[in-house]
């Protein structure tokens, strides 16, 4: 099933589109994935996938194990360079950015933040420090790239106070304020997951990408997570998440993209996806093909 509302326009250049005044596409789309293909040697992990994530929405990417979700994610967040296709970020009132052409560290600066399937915090640094590292780019500019700060110029202390304030906000939003001075590595698992989200949010992204945020959480923690994600959406950040916990996906997603064997097989509202025979077939396995392949 192809997207019902707005098929992404692959051929058109974002710039010309803006010049011609097609503003509607810009307002609605935050991320545009066009014909994305990723091959590792002979293996095609993602094959000509196209979809669009809308601004201010939660888009979930689901699919059976090995469907290419994490590969897709790694392409979007700059950890892999795609073999073909394009990924564009459309921020409000800004020119679109070709994410697939940016070096890894520029992706976050362009406004895409991510979390990791296996949590990647800075375990020996405190929760607060983790959140300040996330504001590195902003703070670094305020220090005059290190030189001014050593000399004690006055602009930095103010920037740092603001950064700490932002960190405090996210710590309290993730219910971690009382653990601010504890090393991240010593936090319980659920708290680490929340801290990673808080850290990603401290980069002040336009799009937050979450790789299985509910993995390993108990039902109560999953509920809290769902609430947190809705809150983040409420503040105007768009979300893209990979998730296996269908309870969470169906409850909070505005849109669900389904991948199977590297191909897009569905892109629709949660309810529609649930009833899609292709999706059901992908999850239950068409014949014995999957089992054979995995065995």
């Amino acid at each position, binding site marked *: 099933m192809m997207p019902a509302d707005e098929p992404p326009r692959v051929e058109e250049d974002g710039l010309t589109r803006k010049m011609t005044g097609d503003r509607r596409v810009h307002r609605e789309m935050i991320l545009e994935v066009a014909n994305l293909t990723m091959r590792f040697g002979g293996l095609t992990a993602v094959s000509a996938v196209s979809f669009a994530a809308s601004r201010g929405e939660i888009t979930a990417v689901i699919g059976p194990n090995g469907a290419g979700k994490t590969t897709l994610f790694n392409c979007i*967040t*700059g*950890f892999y360079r795609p073999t073909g296709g394009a990924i564009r970020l459309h921020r409000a009132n800004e020119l679109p950015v070709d994410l697939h052409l940016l070096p*890894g*560290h*520029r*992706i*976050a*600066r362009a406004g895409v*933040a*991510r979390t*990791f399937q296996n949590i*990647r*915090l*800075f*375990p*020996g*640094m*405190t929760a*607060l*420090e*983790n959140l*300040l*590292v*996330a*504001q*590195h*780019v902003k*703070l*670094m500019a305020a*220090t005059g*790239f*290190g030189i001014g*700060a*050593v000399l004690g110029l006055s602009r*930095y202390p103010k920037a740092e106070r603001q950064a*700490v304030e932002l960190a*405090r906000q996210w710590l309290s939003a993730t219910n971690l*304020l009382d653990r*601010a*001075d*504890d*090393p991240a*590595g*010593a936090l319980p698992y659920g708290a680490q997951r929340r801290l990673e989200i808080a*850290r*990603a949010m401290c*980069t002040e992204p336009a799009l937050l990408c979450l790789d299985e945020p509910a993995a390993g959480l108990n039902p109560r923690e999953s509920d809290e997570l769902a609430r947190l994600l809705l809150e983040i959406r409420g503040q105007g950040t768009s979300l893209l998440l990979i998730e296996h916990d269908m309870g969470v996906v169906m409850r909070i997603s505005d849109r669900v993209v389904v991948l199977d064997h590297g191909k897009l097989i569905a892109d629709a509202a949660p309810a529609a996806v649930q009833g899609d025979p292709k999706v059901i077939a992908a999850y239950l396995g068409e014949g014995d093909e999957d089992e054979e392949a995995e065995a």
Partner: protein
Amino acid sequence: MTPAQAIRDAAIAAAVAFGLFVMLVGLRTDVGPEGGLILRQRWGQVALLCGIVFAGRLAITTLAGRRALQPSTAPGPWTARLQRAGKLLAPALLAVALVLPAIPGIGRYELDIGILVLTYIMLGWGLNIVVGLAGLLDLGYVAFYAIGAYSYALLAQYFGLSFWICLPLAGILAAFWGVLLGFPVLRLRGDYLAIVTLAFGEIIRVVLLNWTELTNGPNGISGIPRPSFFGLPFSMAGGEGTFAGFFGIEPSPSHRVIFLYYVIFALALLTNWVTLRLRRQPLGRAWEALREDEIACRALGINITTTKLTAFALGAMFGGFAGAFFATRQAFISPESFTFIESAIILAIVVLGGLGSQVGVAIAALVMIGGFEVFRGLDEWRMLVFGGAMVVIMVLRPRGLVGTRTPSIALGEKRAIGGDLVGEGRG
């Protein structure tokens, strides 16, 4: 362990010791009178060594139990005390260092050791930026020390520039080389980076050794000018334009030593000050984050290459400063002073002190270098003891003397972070 088991255990240890010592200690090769090699037998010493191993092993297993030899990253009995005293210890050390030349009984010899220890403290602090904070394993740090030393020596020799002009230049040149080396290799990870930095250190040394026209090769450069006191030279002759003459005091050779002592003291403090300051800044935090998790750093928009490069260059710069100081203090340098073993000693100071800990590095330098000088009487045995001490300290305290990390910022109270949580970098 029962006594019988302990004796059996000690006997095995003694048997192994016999296997180790029988050839190399039992039979000594010497060049005989005709130029050929002759063997001398020393079975008594083999027996003595085996006896020592037997007794030592037995004593350790029976008195302390096998547990005593297990490594531990848990805070040692002194760590807690050190932390309590920590607020006092650092200022106390600083105060002693400050007034050292004035303490009665401290002569020229003691001051020379003080200068040496401070040089290594400075080198340790410089390398600490690279290894301790940024988590980059640099086995060729001595190269930057050498570049600093030769920069000053050559600039002084060919252009007649004074120490105070050359000091910043030496640092800049070393940092420049740090960037030059770092740029292509910093994307290498772990041990690959280690071997490349080691190779770089050796390349610099071999070039210094063989580029005879410029560096005078193995003979080194002598007659390197001494630093002046704001333009006033130290001279035994006294008189108008000299330090002693200007202040109207009796000329004494110790003036220069005291002056050099304070120069390196100030340089070391500068290193420390910059490091401590940067640690509380975004750049320093990015270094530590890089040590903890490079991939997460990338996802947060941190430019890994430039961040590593700044750590590498800054570390190199302090190495360069220390090198220029070394050249002016010795008045003579040769490639012999810049061998791999120097890099190894500096790295050992950093690791033994506790990665990232400034006080730890200072204490480690004091213990290692100071202790090394104290045992001067042991001659060739000294290095043997030195190496053995490195092994023993590392086995007992893998995380170094101060294995904890102090957060750079806190909402409430800063609490030390246990060493087992702190990463040590992969690059």
